[in-house]
């Protein structure tokens, strides 16, 4: 009896061993080579309109690549984490992508305040990060002028946008007295306004008021009353969140302040028109891409029909970043293993590569895309209208 039992246990052990071996063989066969791409975005918090409009587009693109057989035998996997629109959360999730998920490349974040601390983390982890709309200079090059080797971006930088805004306001609109309303906690706004101010003064204009606020504020009447009192004819408000510009426009109207409003790509979303279209009639908004551009019409319709949400510039920039990484992976696969290092090297030297919005050439010195055109738009009858295109020299 005892012997029989012992035998039974032995047999069972053998069967188990065989099963384990078989299973490991089987999983060996099934194990696909997967490359993980991270995407950190704002799905909750004050900027929760960024993520929902971009995640489905990115997932669609990844699905398409996988349906076509992946890249060189590798399937792609998109891992999305929410930043809650907070810098601390953005830093926490990117560490998770590097340490736990072993992502080969990461897309995001969309704002400079988070992208600047992330640049150091990316350098330490040696994983390339492609920021989407983080346009502050220090995202890719530190304040001491050191290039962050693993940080890239797909948008143009603030100096260029600030320069173009000042130029347009002074030369085309003939305005001379500007007031700045700055989100003092946003490197994007602070940087852009500094460049606007420098060039506007250089041209001979005058800054008559410099007012501030912080993210989350809804009340701007105190600042606007002061701007009205200062006799400004131009209000420059390059907010990162469209709510700020929408509310300021409503409150300016309520105060009887009639002024030319100018803003940047941070607020270029269709929701701004729903919020304060009539109050913003005639406002100038500079941007890198435009939803109303005819080349996106087909994409926009298909996207809205499939996902029930309107595409915005964050959708386009997100796709640009994903396609930049896709290019990096393809090039790395051609040369061997798609390691983060190899992907980084390929992105750094990319030349005239067609991404979603435009062809991109990467500047290896600064990791900024070269010669991105800048669009100057206005709002007419509650719609975006393109006034002119600014080509960088």
């Amino acid at each position, binding site marked *: 009896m005892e012997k029989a039992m012992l035998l039974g246990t032995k047999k069972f052990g053998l069967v188990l061993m065989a099963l384990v071996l078989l299973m490991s063989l089987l999983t060996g066969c099934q194990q696909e080579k997967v490359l993980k791409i991270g995407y950190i975005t*704002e*799905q*909750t*918090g*004050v*900027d*929760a*309109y960024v993520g*929902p409009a971009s995640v489905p587009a990115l997932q669609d693109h990844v699905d398409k690549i996988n349906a076509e057989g992946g890249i060189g035998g590798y399937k792609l996997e998109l891992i999305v984490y929410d930043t809650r629109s907070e810098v601390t959360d953005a830093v926490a999730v990117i560490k998770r992508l590097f340490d736990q998920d072993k992502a080969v490349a990461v897309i995001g974040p969309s704002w400079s305040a988070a992208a600047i601390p992330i640049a150091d983390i990316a350098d330490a982890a040696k994983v390339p990060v492609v920021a989407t709309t983080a346009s502050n200079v220090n995202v890719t090059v530190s304040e001491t002028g050191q290039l962050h080797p693993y940080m890239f971006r797909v948008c143009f930088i603030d100096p260029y946008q600030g320069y173009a805004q000042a130029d347009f306001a002074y030369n085309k609109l003939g305005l001379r007295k500007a007031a700045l309303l*700055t989100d*003092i906690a946003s490197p994007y706004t602070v940087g852009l306004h500094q460049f606007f101010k420098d060039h506007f003064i250089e041209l001979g204009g005058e800054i008559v008021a410099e*007012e*501030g*606020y*912080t993210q*989350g504020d*809804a*009340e701007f*009447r*105190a*600042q606007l*009353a*002061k701007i009205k*009192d200062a006799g400004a004819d131009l209000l420059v408000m390059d907010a990162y969140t*469209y*709510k700020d510009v*929408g*509310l300021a426009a*409503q409150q300016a109207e*309520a*105060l*009887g302040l009639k002024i030319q409003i100018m803003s940047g790509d941070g607020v270029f979303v269709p*929701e701004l028109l*729903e*919020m*304060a279209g009539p109050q913003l009639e005639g406002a100038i908004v500079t941007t890198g891409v435009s939803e109303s551009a005819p080349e996106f019409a087909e994409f926009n319709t298909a996207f809205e029909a499939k996902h029930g*949400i309107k595409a915005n510039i964050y959708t386009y920039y997100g796709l640009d970043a994903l396609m930049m990484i896709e290019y990096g992976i393809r090039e790395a696969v051609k040369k061997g293993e798609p390691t983060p290092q190899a992907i980084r090297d390929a992105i750094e030297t990319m030349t005239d590569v067609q991404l979603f919005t435009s062809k991109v050439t990467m500047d290896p010195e600064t990791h900024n895309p070269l010669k991105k055109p800048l669009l100057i738009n206005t709002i007419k009858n509650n719609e975006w209208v393109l006034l002119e295109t600014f080509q960088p020299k």
Partner: protein
Amino acid sequence: MELFIQQLVSGISIGAIYALLAVGYALVYSVYNFTNWAFDAFMAFGAFMAFVAISSLAMPFWLAMILSIILTIILSVGSESLAYRPLRERKAPRLFMMISAMGVNLAVVNIINLIFGGTFRKFPVESVQPIFVGNVSIGRMDLIAGAISFGVLALLWLFLYRTRWGLGIRASAIDIQTASLMGINNNAVAIIIFIITGVLSSIAGVFYGIKYAVFPMMGIVTIKAMIASIVGGLGSLPAAIVGSMILGVLETLVSGYISSSYRDLFSFLFLIIILLFFPNGLMGKNVDEKL
């Protein structure tokens, strides 16, 4: 001078919104000695309910307002019985109630975000032109919001000081244990307080939504109401109103004459200075004189 009057008018209108919220904080604090962090979620919830009622169900404003108040009361009382009462009955430390409130807040705000999305919506009411006195603009909506705020606060005062239920709440504010020994139904007091909280937060949410925009994170402003109620004297209703007015006017004057960039710095600095010299707030009273 014109600028000064304009800033004063703006300051008072901001103060009126702070007041509604500050009173809500004060009421819960006075009885339970904990800060109801879920208040900002109730505010956003109230605003969204009215928003949906008007934009999707095509209700008139007054009906939407009533619906919003009723639903916010249900949420407020519901969260009391789910998140706070079990803790109270188990005699949990007050800190745990505050953490529980934070949980309610996170859950409600994120559910709103999930259902409605994080966009900023314009409240669907006709925008009305402000009244101009010389060059000083006074918003009609501000006047209406201000009048309703003070009307509601006056009703609340009457309720607390002229009814038996009010007496019960005031007794509970002094010492909830003794009050319940004297035959005051503890749970009934809790329900009434959270009904009032629901009403106040819904009204504050709707007017804040009309004045600014409706979005899930709109409750951020309650941090200012919190400062206002501490400046006035935590736990006292008139003090919460006075604190709100002082803070609203202080903020606009700092923005207008010192620096708008440092406005919040001044708000918090002001709070610290007040607390250094008046540890109970400007009008803070002893325990037996609360409310």
